[in-house]
Each structure stands twice: as C-alpha cells, then as structure tokens.
C-alpha cells in the first residue's frame, strides 16, 4: 500500500515537469537530469577554499605577485593598492584601463613619483621637526616618499598610535591633507626599534588584511575560532563548509539557511528570539493526545506519534490519524496548508501571531526531527554492522547511509522552507510586489511542492527507522528499493522547490533582490585546502622572488602536510599565541560596526542547539 504511494508520487512528478510520454526510457530521463544539473551549476558556480594560518601568507603573495608584475611595483606599493581596492586584482586591472596609472595610484595613496629631497634643506644644519618643534640633527629625521619629513621620534609615536587604533593597513603621512600611505618598511623599522611587539602586530594586521579587507574571503565564524578563513571564487551567495566542519552561509556568516535568503533568515531568527521571550509555547515539547489528553512526547524523527493509550496522531496539527494507513493519511491530509481564517480572527495582531505560530511550529517540528534523526546515525551504524556480519547475500549497506544523508539534507531544506514561506507570502517583505490573487496562486504552487516533499521525507524517515537487521533478505531488498527510490524522489523535489523559488517566486519580483544559496544534491562540499593549488605555480614565484624565505618555508610545510611549529611562529609571529588568536577573534566581531551583534543575532538560544 505504502509502496503504491511512493511510486505514485514519483511518477506524478516526472509527468509534471518533463515533456516525454509515459514510456520514456531511462536514458532520456538521465539526459534531462544532466542538462538540468549543468544549467544549474552554470549560474551558481562557486569554489571555496580554506585559508589556514599557514597558507594566508601564500594566498596574499599570490595576489601581490600579480599586481607587482603587471604594474612593476614594489611589494609595499602593491599591497597599499590591493588594500585600497579590497584585494580585487581584476578590479585593479579594470580601473587601470579606465583611470590610468596615475589616478589609480594617487587615490589609493601610492606615491611612486619621488618627491624626496624637495622640501628637506640640503645643508647639514639641524632641521626643525614640525611636530615636536625641536631642532634635530638630519640623521634622526626621516623623509617619506611624498617629501614630508619629521623626526624619527615623532614618526614612531604616530605609527604606534595608528597601529593601536587598528589602522595599520593605511597609515597616512603626518602632514595635514597628505594622502600618501607610509612606507611599510619605514614603519616596521622605526616601530620595532622601540616596540618589537607592536611591530609584530603591524605585520599581522597587514597579513590579515587579506581576510578583513576582502569581499571574497571571510573568517570562519566558528566559536572558539578554528583559525581558518574561507575564500570563495565565483558566486559568493553560497554555503560553505570549513575544514573544521562548520557549515555556514558565506554571505551572512550565520548557519546555512537556504532556501531562505539572508534577510529572511535574519528577520526570522530575530523574530523567533523576540517571540520566544513573550510567548512560551516554543519550549513546549509535548502535545496533548487528542483522545486521552495526556501529554505525549515525540521521540522519533517522523511526525506520526502514538500515545500510550493507543491513539496515533499527527504531530504537526495534533489531529488524530489512523494507525493502519499512517503515512498516507499524513500525506493526504492538508495540515501543511494554512488558510487564513478571517471570520474567526479579526484582530490583526492575533492573526499575525497565529500565522507565525503556524510556520514556526512546522519549522520547529522539522528542526527537532533533524535533531532526532542525527541520533539515528549511531543506531543505524549499529544495525549496519549487525547486518554485515549475519548470514546473508546482501553485504553492501551503503544505501542506508546514503539514504540517511539525503534525509538530513532534505529535512533541512524542508525546515528552512517554512520561514521562507512565512516571508514570501507574508506582508513584511513583498506586500506590494504581488496582487492577492497572484500571491494565492503562488502560495498554492509552493505549498503543493512543500507537501509532496514533506510526505516523502516522512516516508524516507520511516523506512530508515526500520529494524532491517532483523529482516529476511527479501524484506531487506524491499526496504532498500524504497529507500533508494525515496532518496531520488526527495532529491528531485528539493531541486524542484529551489527552481520554483528562483524562477517562479523570486525572479518576477521588481524591487527586492534575494539571493538564495543553491541546492546541492551531494551536500555542501568541504572547502579545499588552498595551499595545494598554489604550490603548482609557486616554483616559479620562489625563483623570481628569492628573498622571500617565508613563502618557501611555508610551501614546504603545506606541501608535506607536516606541521613545523617553529617556522609557523615565524610566519605569523604572534598569531599562534593565545593573546593574538583572541584578538583576531575579537576584531572579527567588532570591526564591522554592528558586527558586535552578529553572533548573538544569528544564533538565538533556540537555534543555536540545532546541531
């Protein structure tokens, strides 16, 4: 019975979204699928790589090299230029065409034309420093490229104040209105003579500028911080997985939240936080049995629960269901659908809360399921090892883990589809973007897909919960075919939902732009190790840039995958110490004003425990 259901919905689906007749062969189906995937990847192409403490220098050098070579610049000038243009090499090359070298440089504060010797008198008499008003000997005066000179004590003091203010990346000349950025070698020399620790900090700031001043690189938001940053090439509206295992939205740095847009997710977490403070219902983890009214706790992943009195009911709406055709009645009944009941609720506020609760209950139910199902992982591992060791022809149980992973991903999509729907069809964001009829039409379209996905996800969950280790081979085969089939159906439905969101729902909007990180059938790809791709062309760079022993050491360290603590502490002096690791984390939060709230805002208590 249940079996009929599976195939029913999957073939319905295919009929709906392709133009082939019922007798399509599998090949055509596959071709269509490949085309579809290809198209999807075209517009959402992105590759992510991990930048570790050790590869940061290498990553930065790579870009410095490009600019130095093309514009025949010294490293410090290339760095100033890159910092000003946010490490966007392509943009620098573009602007070079548009503005010409001179304007490109002067806007960034790069002084390549020598003004030296113009202002400083030629004689060997003492000169007056215009900051301390003292007469000092010429040997204790330093002249910058722009031609302005002050005594070394005053320069040093100026540099230290700027470094302490966190302005290491662009310390300007002392002279009023002079836009020139000070020579980093001069800064380093003068500061380290008096405060070696501050000079180290200066170097680290310059190094970390590659992350802090770069739209395509961001610190991993893990807490405690794993020390990594992620670089994305291509579409930056994507979800990434750091080497530390944390998955996050690259754009807003909160947990992966597609198919919600960043704005929707921000509004949603804020709302959940606010509402949970006023209304306590979120913490209610039990529901009364519709028959005996005893509180019933949910303990499995699926949304069909049974009371000890024998009554089965739907966790989502609390309505009684039969035991015999449990999942078909869940998929059949329309509790995923929400109709605004104007007659009963005239008060706007009440209706809003009710509407919110509707979406939140479902969102919460699915995130809870996800949590429960995560526990399933271990149980299932146990079942697999029992199965593998028993007398049976079936030895391969990869389908179970594959099915489980698919279940996690689709469950995730499903739960985030509720906050998406809350905003998509609510008044908050798109009130004037759609007519009432349009909205209703689209809402029906979307909820149809959502319900199909929901019922198939529940079915998949149900099959995966089975005690297949006790089954006969025939029963195992039967379960396997269900799991494989449902995995495919669910994957397809997820894809379809993302397409619907992008093409039918968001694309027609005029005023608002909401970027949704694309759906990945195989789950998020873990960011690759950056140093590896850098190694390949490094042989050349090392040769042309022999004084850079750091890069070379670094290369060896990464290439061999070995850890060379001594060398690393040279490369990122201070960065490996506790104090600095701490400060870099602090900066990640405080630097972009308002960032202070970033972590708190994105992770209200009830969301934080999602894993």
């Amino acid at each position, binding site marked *: 019975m249940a079996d009929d259901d599976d195939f029913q919905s999957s073939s319905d689906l295919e009929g709906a979204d392709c133009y082939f007749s019922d007798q399509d062969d599998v090949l055509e189906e596959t071709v269509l699928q490949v085309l579809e995937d290809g198209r999807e990847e075209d517009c959402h192409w992105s590759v992510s790589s991990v930048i570790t403490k050790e590869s940061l220098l290498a990553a930065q050098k790579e870009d410095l090299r490009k600019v130095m070579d093309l514009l025949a610049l010294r490293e410090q000038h290339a760095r100033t230029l890159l910092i000003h243009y946010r490490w966007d090499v392509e943009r620098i090359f573009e602007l070079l065409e548009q503005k010409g070298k001179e304007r490109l440089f002067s806007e960034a504060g790069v002084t390549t034309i020598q003004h030296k010797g113009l202002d400083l008198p030629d004689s060997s008499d003492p000169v007056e420093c*215009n*900051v*301390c008003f*003292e007469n000092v000997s010429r040997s204790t005066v330093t002249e910058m490229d722009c031609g302005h000179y002050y005594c070394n004590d*005053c320069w040093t*003091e*100026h540099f230290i104040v700027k470094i302490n203010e966190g302005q290491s990346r662009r310390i300007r000349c*002392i002279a*009023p209105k002079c836009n020139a950025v000070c020579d980093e070698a001069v800064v380093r020399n003068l500061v380290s003579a008096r405060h070696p620790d501050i000079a180290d900090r200066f170097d680290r700031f310059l190094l970390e500028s590659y992350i802090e001043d770069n739209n395509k690189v961001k610190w991993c938001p893990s807490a405690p911080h794993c020390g990594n940053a992620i670089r994305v090439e291509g579409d930056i509206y994507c979800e990434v997985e750091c080497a530390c295992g944390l998955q996050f939205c690259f754009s807003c740095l909160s947990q992966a939240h597609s198919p919600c847009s960043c704005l929707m997710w921000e509004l949603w977490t804020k709302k959940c936080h606010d509402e949970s403070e006023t209304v306590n219902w979120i913490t209610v983890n039990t529901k009364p049995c519709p028959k005996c009214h005893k509180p019933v706790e949910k303990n499995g992943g699926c949304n069909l629960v049974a009371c000890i009195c024998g009554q089965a009911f739907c966790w989502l709406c609390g309505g009684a269901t039969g035991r015999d055709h449990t999942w078909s009645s869940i998929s059949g009944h329309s509790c995923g659908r929400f109709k605004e009941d104007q007659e009963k609720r005239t008060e706007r506020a009440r209706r809003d809360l009710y509407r919110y609760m509707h979406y939140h209950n479902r969102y919460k139910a699915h995130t809870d399921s996800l949590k429960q199902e995560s526990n399933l992982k271990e149980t299932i591992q146990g079942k697999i090892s029992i199965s593998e060791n028993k007398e049976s022809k079936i030895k391969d149980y990869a389908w179970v883990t594959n099915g489980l992973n698919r279940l996690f991903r689709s469950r995730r999509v499903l739960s985030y589809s509720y906050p998406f729907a809350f905003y998509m069809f609510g008044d908050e964001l798109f009130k004037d973007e759609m007519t009432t009829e349009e909205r209703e039409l689209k809402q029906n379209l979307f909820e149809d897909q959502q319900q199909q996905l929901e019922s198939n996800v529940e079915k998949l969950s149900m099959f995966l919960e089975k005690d297949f280790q006790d089954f006969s081979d025939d029963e195992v085969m039967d379960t396997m075919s269900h799991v494989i089939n449902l995995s495919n159906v669910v994957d397809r439905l997820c894809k379809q939902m993302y397409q619907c969101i992008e093409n039918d729902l968001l694309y027609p909007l005029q005023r608002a732009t909401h970027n949704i990180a694309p759906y990945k059938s195989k789950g998020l790809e873990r960011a690759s190790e950056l140093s590896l791709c850098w190694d390949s062309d490094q042989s050349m760079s090392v040769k042309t840039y022999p004084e850079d022993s750091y890069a070379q050491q670094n290369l060896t360290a990464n290439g061999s995958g070995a850890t060379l603590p001594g060398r690393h502490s040279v490369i990122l002096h201070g960065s490996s110490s506790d104090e600095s690791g701490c400060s870099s984390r602090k900066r990640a939060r405080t630097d972009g004003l308002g960032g202070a709230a970033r972590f708190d805002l994105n992770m209200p208590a009830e969301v934080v425990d999602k894993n």
Partner: protein
Amino acid sequence: MLDVSRVQKELMECNRDKAISGVSIVLHDGGSDLSHLSGTITGPVGTPYEGGTFQIDISLPSGYPFEPPKMQFITKVWHPNISSQNGAICLDILKDQWSPALTLKTALLSLQALLSAPEPDDPQDAVVAQQYLREYPTFVATARYWTEVFAKRTSVGIEEKVQKLVEMGFSEDLVKNTLESVNGDENMALEKLCSG
C-alpha cells in the same frame, strides 16, 4: 606622556599675535594643568556671531599631539555643527582628519572658519541644521539672538531680562517670544509689548 614642551611652545606662539588672529589660549581656570586649557575665539565679522566672544574648553589626551585635542564650546552657540545643548563640535580635523602637525591655534582658527561657513550636510545639531536649510532668515535671527544673549560679556543674562519684563506684568511666554523676535534688545521688546 603629554608633550609638555610642545604645549608650552604652542601657548606662547598662539598668544603672541592674539590681537590679530582673534584666538587665544590660557590654562583652564588659571590652574597649572597643561592638559586642561581654555580657548577663546571672536565671532567672525559679517556673520551672526559678530561681536561675540566664544569660550572653548580644551582637554589634551595623553597622546597629544598624536591624538586630537578634545574641544567643546562653553559659550552657548546656535550653529548647525555645534550642539545647542552641550557645545559638542562636529569638525573633521578634531576627529579622523587630525594631524600631529596641526596645532591648537590652527584648530581654533578652523573653529572660527566653521562659524563663517557652516556645513549643514554634516550636522551636529539636527534642529539647527534643518532651520539653516529651510528657514535661513529665522536661523540668522536666532544665531544673532544667541550671540547677543550668551556671547557678549556686557549683555545682561536673558533670565534677568525676562524676569524684569514679567515683573512689569507681561506673561512669561509672551516676553520670551518678543525678546527673541527683537534679538534680545530689552528696550525694543518693551516697546513692542506695550504697543501690541
């Protein structure tokens, strides 16, 4: 930490030509603390501040001159870039555009220049800035009134004037409005009150 020798030189330098420049600096309350000073600027000619003398509280952070001095108007002044509440100043060289090669004198001269040329697009006091942009004549009248009342050492305090006229039997609100409309001139206000 504070560069005492520089501050002393600055004070001497500044006060040498105060008659010409219209700005001067003394130690706050005649004390001996070099980090707490008191500046004076005269209102620029041809502005609503003409004839006024404005007191500015100056405190020097220990990092001075590598960190900007903190300045605040003690004398109440009606100006888009100066808070009418507490005298806080919105001026770039007192913030991120400060340079250690600038001096207290140049900063005070910049304040004087600010009185001549307000920048209502970057306001400190939104109410004043609105008025400056939308009802310029009212702005000028108010600024002049404030100069008259607060920045002229010889002028009697506004409270006293109000008090006097109220005692003659006029309502306090009416007195205040009338005084303001004639820029604080006591006699003109009385004339107006009697005739109207």
